[in-house]
Structure formats: C-alpha cells, structure tokens
C-alpha cells in the first residue's frame, strides 16, 4: 500500500479521527485568498451568504460584494455584466439553484458570451442530508460539463476546494466549482499539488487489476474500499479526478491501459456525470469494462449524509461490490 508519497496527502487519512471540514468552507477561504491576490475578484450572492461561505469575503471586502436577494437568474447575468467590465465575479448559491435554476442564463449570458464568471454551487450531492431531495443537486455535473468552454471542478476536500477557487481566477473561461455542505475528511494538505485539468493517482497497491476513479468527497470512501480490498489481496489504483472538464485524457487512457477494469465513483446521477465523461473518453480511446457508482436515476430524500450515501449505493461497501463486479467481467 500505497498512498502516493509525492502528493503529501494527510497521513491521518485512514484514522478514525481524521479531521473533517466542509468543502464549501474551503471555498470560502479560497475566495478571500483570491480577493487578496486579485483586485478584480468580486463576489455575488443570492441570499445564502453565510451558508455558501461568502461571508468571510463580504467582511474582508464589503465594497466588492453584491447581495442580489433570492434571484439566481439575475445572479448569473449580473455576473456576466460585471465580467464585461473587467471584473472576475464569483456567483454563489446552492448548486440546485445555480447552475440549476439559472442554467440558460449561464449558458447564454456567461458561456456563449465568453465571460469568465466563476460559479460556485454549494450543497451538491445527497449528503446535503435532512433538507431532502429538493436541495440535493445530483445533476449539476451533467448540466455544466455539456456547456462549451465551461471548466468543471469537483474538489475532494476543503483544501483542494481552496486551491481550485484560487486557480479558477487565472482561467479566462467560465468555471463551475462543485461544493458540498457536510463536514468530510481532509485528505490533502497544503503541500499537495493542484492544477486544473490534472488527475492524480492517490493510491496504488501491489499489481493492480482494476482502478477506481473518484471525484469529490467520495474519494475517501474509494480509499477505504481500496484499503479493505488490499487486505483481501485485491490490488487497486485510485485516481482523484477533481477536474471533470477538461478531462485529463492522457492520464485516464494511461490508467485504463495499465489496469483495464475501471470503476467510477461520484455523488451524482450516473447519467451525464463524471463516469459518463470517463466512458466517453475510453469508448473512443481505450475501451475497457466499467462499473459506475453513483445515483441510478432517482431523486434524493431526507436522512443523515451517511444513511443517504449508503442507501443510494455510493459508500465503501458499494464501491467494494462494484470492484468485484468489474473484476468478474
């Protein structure tokens, strides 16, 4: 086993008391850092300033913050207008409403217009928990990655979210950053490298026969599954695919060439998500048997994050099962 030493991952990654921080919180830190580094950065929010972690930025740069009220369509297009005047706007809300409710405004006034607006969608995935299915965005990767020019990033933890937020400033394109509500394990450290569009092999054991490609906080469940299987002499490679678009095609093809069985893991609908993006790539470049861990064409519901991740078949046990299935093919 093991963990890729070059990535300087959190040594307490597998401990019971691994530190838990919400991914959205990392975004809030990153936004302040981006604001300090670049005076063009402004933040817009639709009545969720505290919850979407824009409050820190608002306190630090009150003159560069705009409250829009509950108006996500306006949020997207006002962001576009500010970008037209040279600002780098971060528009923030819950993923269900932005990019959910305002998809056409994002598509036309931001992407078609080629304005570098950064869209931060919090509360993605069923792990939103008790709020229930209305607030659990599990379609957002699909609807953003289909838009030309859009960069789509789904950070695995709060630290990666901070880095992704800062990195988003220097792209000249629209970016969607997918964030989650719940406290989740911190897997990376400040020293872990991050680059938009670069996938990372986080784990390799023995001579792997299959690989897991995970995105978002479920990377931790994927690592737990890899550890459990390793104990049973099933060797695996685990990749963190935090940039879903542009896809790191070379890394994915190389992975499929080395370990021709792939399982994708994401807290999102199977249709159109990260696994679909990987399948599109491999079907054209290097077809291999694949299994998809994610939500199978259903809506979310109320519950604890743990209950919901297990109920919808995205936890460690489900991933272990999926690996066994793909190895039988």
């Amino acid at each position, binding site marked *: 086993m093991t963990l890729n030493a070059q990535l300087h991952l959190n040594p307490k990654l597998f401990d019971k008391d691994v530190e838990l921080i919400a991914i959205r919180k990392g975004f809030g830190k990153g936004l302040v850092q981006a604001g300090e580094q670049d005076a063009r950065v*402004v933040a817009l929010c639709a009545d969720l300033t505290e919850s979407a972690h824009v409050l820190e930025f608002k306190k630090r740069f009150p*003159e*560069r913050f*705009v409250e*829009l*009220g509950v*108006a996500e*369509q*306006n949020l*997207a*297009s*006002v*962001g*576009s*207008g*500010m*970008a*037209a*005047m*040279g*600002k780098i*706007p971060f528009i923030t809300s819950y993923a269900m409403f932005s990019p959910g409710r305002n998809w*056409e*405004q994002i598509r*036309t*006034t931001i992407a*078609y*217009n*080629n304005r570098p607006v950064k869209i931060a969608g919090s509360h993605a995935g069923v792990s939103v928990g008790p709020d229930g299915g209305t607030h659990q965005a599990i379609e957002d990767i699909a609807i953003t990655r289909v838009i030309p020019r859009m960069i789509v990033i789904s950070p695995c933890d709060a630290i990666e979210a901070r880095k992704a937020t800062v990195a988003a400033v220097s792209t000249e394109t629209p970016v969607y950053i997918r964030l989650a509500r719940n406290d989740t394990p911190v897997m990376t450290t400040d020293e872990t490298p991050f680059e938009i569009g670069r996938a990372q092999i986080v784990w390799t054991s023995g001579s792997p026969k299959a690989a897991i490609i995970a995105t978002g906080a479920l990377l931790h469940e994927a690592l737990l599954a890899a550890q459990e299987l390793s104990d049973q002499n099933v060797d695996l490679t685990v990749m963190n695919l935090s940039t879903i678009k542009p896809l790191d095609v070379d890394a994915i093809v190389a992975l499929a060439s080395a370990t021709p069985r792939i399982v994708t893991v994401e807290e999102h609908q199977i249709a159109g998500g990260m696994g679909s993006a990987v399948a599109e790539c491999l079907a054209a470049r290097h077809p291999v048997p694949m299994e998809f861990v994610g939500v199978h064409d259903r809506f979310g519901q109320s519950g604890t994050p743990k209950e919901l991740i297990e109920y919808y078949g995205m936890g460690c046990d489900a991933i272990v099962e999926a690996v066994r299935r793909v190895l039988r093919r």
Partner: protein
Amino acid sequence: MLTEQKRLELESIANRIRESIIEMLVAAGSGHTAGPLGMADVFTVLYFHTLRHDPRNPAWDGRDRLVLSNGHICPVLYATMAHAGYFPIAELATLRKFGSRLQGHPHREFLPALETSSGPLGSGLSQAVGMAIADAMDGKTNDRKIYCLMSDGELEEGQSWEAAMLAGRNALFNLVALIDRNNIQIDGFTEDVMPLEPLADKWRAWNWHVIEIDGHDLDEIADAFQESKSIFEKPTMIIAHTIPGKGVKEFERDFHWHGKPPDREQAGMALNELRTLGGRIRSEHQ
C-alpha cells in the same frame, strides 16, 4: 431639443436605416420586421446623437455601453452600426447567412463591436445592471452611461423584474433603459397575451425615474436621454411608445409582422414607400 438641421439629418438617416432593414430582411429570407422598423428612430438618435462611441475604435474603454436585450431586432442594430461606420453597408446583405458576422441573433464573438450576445429574452437588463454596478464600484459613474434597450413582451420574463429591483435598490443612476412599447408580441397584442399595464407605475414602484415618450419623435427621444443625465438618484426608464413596422403603412401595428420578413414584392412596395417618403416625393428609383 435638436436643431432643425440635426433633426433633418437624423430623419434622413432613420429613413436610410429603414431601407437597409427591408433590404437585408428580404436578402436573408427570414427574420423580424416590425420591431426593427419601429425602433429605427431610437437607434438613429442613439448612434448619431446621444452615444459616446467611436465606430473606428469599438474597443475604446471610455465608450458608453449599449446592451440590446431583445436580440431579435438586430437588423436595426446592424443597419445602424453599418450606417455609423462600424462595418461596410454592403455587409448587411450577409445577415443570417453561413459565415456572416451578422448572426441571426447578435453574437459578440462574430462581431466584437457588440457589447453582448443576446436573443433569449429577459436577460439583457441584468447584464446592463452588472455593468452599472461594476462602474459604480470603480467610481466611474460619471465617465459613461450604460444603456439597455428592451422590448415590452420580454417583461413577461421574471428575470426582468429581478434586475429592476436590484437596479432600483442600488440607485444605479448610470443606467438608462428604454422599453420599445409597441404593444405586440408573437402571439398577439401584449395586453391580450399578458397585460403589462400600468407599466410606468411598475417601474416607479421599483425606484426608477420614468419618462414616457413618442418613440418616433426625434426631439422627444433626444430629450429623454438628455434628461436621464440630470438624474442622480435612481436609474432611468424611458418607455418609448412606438408603432411596430413604422414607416411602411402595410406593416404598421400588425403583430403578424413580428417574426417574418417581407417577400420581394412586399419589399419593393416598402422600399418605394420609404424612398418617396410615403408618396410625398418622387424616388430616383422610379
């Protein structure tokens, strides 16, 4: 008030723009007729009197910004820009054709002199509000104005009112919007499809300064834009009452002309009417 000489000059330009609109629509074989003809006078005053802009240097940072929200009336935008010198008038014949810079709905990547790409209704005012907020942040509210041209039908989009609220709350006096109040939309008259009245009251309620004008009276148009420059408490909304299809009697006030072009025969009739100023003078083409 315009000088007599300026008024005559603008009248003549507006007429030539209307001719170009008819010519480009008949060449394109599709597109919208009523709105562009109805807005020719407003566009003429803006591009030949009100706007601070430089057609030879469209990227000049100090220019006023003009956002066309209802992108489907772009024939009048393209015709006006061509007559103002942004690109050759001959290029108008490429409207809606493959490879043309003049896309069926405006696309700023094809024609960089455009401020925005538009077409889907109800989002232009939001973009103009964003521009006005950015200028307010940067202390540039006195340097330039942000103009937004909108249709009346697109006010049925809820997003219009999201933008209206925000502009009013932020008292964006550097923002001047104008509604083409021609009372028609695709399915019929606005007051039959989805009533908008009392329209001026709605904008006043959101803290806008409202001016109602005859959208074909060049003096009233120019005066309204001038008046907006003296308002420092709130954004200005100019409700311009226009006649859809204005300038061609056969097309006027008929909502069926919203979204279709004239055929060759109708275009010939329309051009003759424009060139003879409604039969008052002889056309050199006769």
